[in-house]
């Protein structure tokens, strides 16, 4: 399991999640319009989920249907 960042992050990039993550596993670049969680590094602590001001982060199995494509988007980001 991992945590997944979804659509509400797009264009917001508040980075609250990055600040609280205990293992620094949330990445982006200036060219990306959102952040991504590395599924291999995430320890499923859930620290990031409640601090996101736009409710963009979900446990993988709890991602709402309307954001399901973001599961693949997150995984693909690290498979490049």
């Amino acid at each position, binding site marked *: 399991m991992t945590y997944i960042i979804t659509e509400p992050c797009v264009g917001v990039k*508040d980075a*609250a999640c990055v*600040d*609280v993550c*205990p*293992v620094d596993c949330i990445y982006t670049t200036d060219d990306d319009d959102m952040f991504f969680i590395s599924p291999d590094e995430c*320890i*499923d*602590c*859930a*620290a990031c*989920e*409640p*601090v*996101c*001001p736009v*409710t963009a982060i979900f446990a993988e199995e709890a991602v709402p249907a309307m954001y399901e494509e973001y599961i693949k988007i997150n995984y693909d980001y690290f498979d490049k």
Partner: protein
Amino acid sequence: MSASDTRPAARPDVNIVVCTDESGCGRWYHRGRNADTILSQLNDAVGDDTAERVQVTTAGCILGCTYGPRFDVVRRWSDEKALYGSICGEATVTRRGRVNFVPIPDHLEQVVKDHLPESAQPIAELNAQDGPPDIDLLRSLLLDCSAGMADHPIGLGEAVVMVHNAAATVSIPATLDDMQFVDGSGNPDTGGGIAVLTTDGDGRVALQLSRVRRLEFIHRVLGNGMPSYAIWMGDDQLETVYRIYLRRSENAAANPKRHQLFMTLTEKYGSTVTF
């Protein structure tokens, strides 16, 4: 997982992330407080005045177990982090590397104050707030074991005390009812720092309360179906230095009451207590 459902409208200055992992820090006590106590004390400490600036949330394991409550404080205004736990000083933590633990202070208002930009203390100086081990808590716990508690007027009674070091182990039959506290000169003192048990052969086993940093109540059912009750104490190196095993009492009527007291003690103090 969030401690409150309200996400602050503005970007907070400080995030406090409390580990409530039931299989780890969430179930341990330090100086009488567990994760739930710490969480509610932190929420009280934030209060209405700083609610928009300090966000307290919960998480699962955030790594860096200290056998007691754990929380991270994130200073978002300076991009610094302080790791609070039940120990003080440097330690190596899986995935997080070499970190410096700040001891959780008795008054959590201090935590809020120490991290807001206008009153911030340098993180490296926060370690100096560690107090001595809480021997009052250990003394009252041992007294409850020895004399019982309000609804449990019978103590834990017959036991075997096991003391060991790297070279030798000694097991001594004793009765916890005879526990006495003495000062450094061996004079009886209800506030003394040494707990003395008189053994069945009239010997004495003395325990320096200030050397005990961790205690565990262990209740098991053995392969033969018999219950086993033990209290293990460890030092600051997490070595188990003093073990108490309860013996079956010859007074059969006392055994169910001793069981109830043991379970009540576990409930009152938590199955693991750190000092």
